[in-house]
């Protein structure tokens, strides 16, 4: 029971942390100069990710995490109550 919970947790973590890495280290740093070729409004895209976009993604990621974990908690709580 607890093993499954932990495994689902690790899966959620690895997906969200991959996105975390891509939007900040990826778009903001490693591929930033190539993204700068694209310009949206006054922003070069790589510059926007480095100074704005990554921050917004961070906020969204935490709230997705909160949502998924609450759902997971509920699922396992219900199951353990059924067993009783």
């Amino acid at each position, binding site marked *: 029971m*607890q093993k499954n*919970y*932990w495994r689902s*947790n690790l899966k959620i*973590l690895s997906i*969200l*942390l991959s996105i*975390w890495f891509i939007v*900040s*280290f990826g778009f*903001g*740093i*490693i591929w*930033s*100069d190539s993204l*700068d070729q694209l310009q*949206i*409004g*006054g*922003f*070069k895209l790589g*510059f*926007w990710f*480095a*100074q*704005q976009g*990554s*921050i*917004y993604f*961070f*906020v969204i*990621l*935490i*709230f997705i*995490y*909160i949502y998924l*974990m*609450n759902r997971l*908690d509920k699922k396992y709580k219900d199951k353990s109550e059924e067993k009783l």
Partner: protein
Amino acid sequence: MDTQVLTYIFVGLSFALYIGIAIWSRASSTNEFYIAGKGVHPVANGMATAADWMSAASFISMAGLIAFLGKDGSVYLMGWTGGYVLLALLLAPYLRKFGQYTVPDFIGARYYSNAARLVAVICLIFVSFTYVAGQMRGVGIVFSRFLEVDINLGVIIGMCIVFFYAVLGGMKGITYTQVAQYCVLIFAYLVPAIFISILMTGNPIPQLGFGDTLVNSDVYLLDKLDKVTTELGFNAYTENTKSTIDIFCITAALMFGTAGLPHVIVRFFTVPRVSDARKSAGYALIFIAILYSTAPAVSAFARMNFIDSVQEVQYKEAPSWFKNWENIGLIAWKDKNNDELIQYSSGNALEGVKPDFNNGRGLSGERLVNNNSDLSNSNEVYIDRDIMVLANPEIAQLPGWVVALVAAGALAAALSTAAGLLLVISASISHDLLKKTFMTQITEKQELFYARCSAAVAIFIAGLFGIYPPGFVAQVVAFAFGLAAATIFPALLMGIFYKRLNKEGAIAGMLSGLVITSAYIINYKFINVHLNSADNWFLGISPEGFGFIGMIVNFFVAFSICYFFKKPPKSVDQMVDSIRNP
């Protein structure tokens, strides 16, 4: 009313508010003193965390730094926000489930060893004092510029306020004061930013405004800025100058360091449930992101405005803010070509960079400096980056009450962070050193007394840092984050996610991270300062980014050493199982 009277009123009112809250929320037990009785609502905790985190450096210095660094400044924006994702996903819920008082508490229990606890306490105290020193300098700058009191008196007033609510209220008092301080500081940050955004681009949202076109023209602000900065011999504002690997490592060190800062982590111990710890990390990051997404806009506006308002202007006609900041020594002008006009471009204006003022006045009325001109370039202006946010409302000619508001906001940012830091220092002394290690016999009441005493001593030492600022504050900031990343963060992370790690591995890991990071930073920042350039760095990684390497070394050493010693005891295994299960 003139600006100074308004500033006295705003600062006085905000201080009265903080003291009122402190009296209302006094702490009466160690539980309340250390972790506010675990009764803090997640939204309130989010605000308190944001105020705790956003220091004088975030409020005063960061936007100014980015204004001069351009895209290179992104490391601070990503580094100091991205760490919260790590904190929310990897640490906060589990440490809250563990449910003790301090960060060394967890390390001591998980690695069943007082030696591990002691190493953690040493890192914690070092990191926290480094940070406090910076806050006190911020308080000093604000007091001397806006209230025109002596810097020392300013620091003493700040100390008294912090003393009052930290010693009396402990974590509980600090939490609710920080909620108020967050409101003051964010309001003070946004109001001038919105004003300036409307003035320059006609867009009331600064986050969009700095990607917008300038008023009465089709030229985008950032394009104009790129053009102007290149013309003056700087790098284009939206392009990096540092190498990719260095930017990568600095960002990483700041992120992992942020996630390992004890005064932030301990905030998540104060909420009622594990799910609240996750939630309050989310709220904290929203509240932080409001300031951090505004900061780069402020930077771009400030850089543009600064150039526009001083370039090729006669010194006699220069705006009053220029002379005000010159009077307290944070701006200097040396008329290299004797044309009485101010010329600003790339390069250092003065030999030795920082101005050394004498009492004389030059032909135009400027303050004279003893430094020789740096003749390798034609720049005539020295400007301290710390003043950009404080000077910004004046540069944009905003009304006096906005200037007064910014002063109150800067003080809120400095005091809230100082209080949070002083509290973790005092808790680690009274709880980890005395109660858990050296004086295990003391009662709760005595422990609370010692906690208050150590808070008082810590405030006193912090005040001394403010009055006699050590010259090395700027250099040691890299240290604080590097060490948090190389020691505290890995120990916590592996403690939760890697059951096999025993005390030998953890201690060896922390010590190797500590030693290698310190050695690298001390070598380049204090001993071989002249060698501190990209050619000599290991893989081109600057001392600011080396904490990341220290962290990798820590992981590597911990993994290898732990297999030579026996597994952690069963009880630790069960403890890890229990924290993994909310």
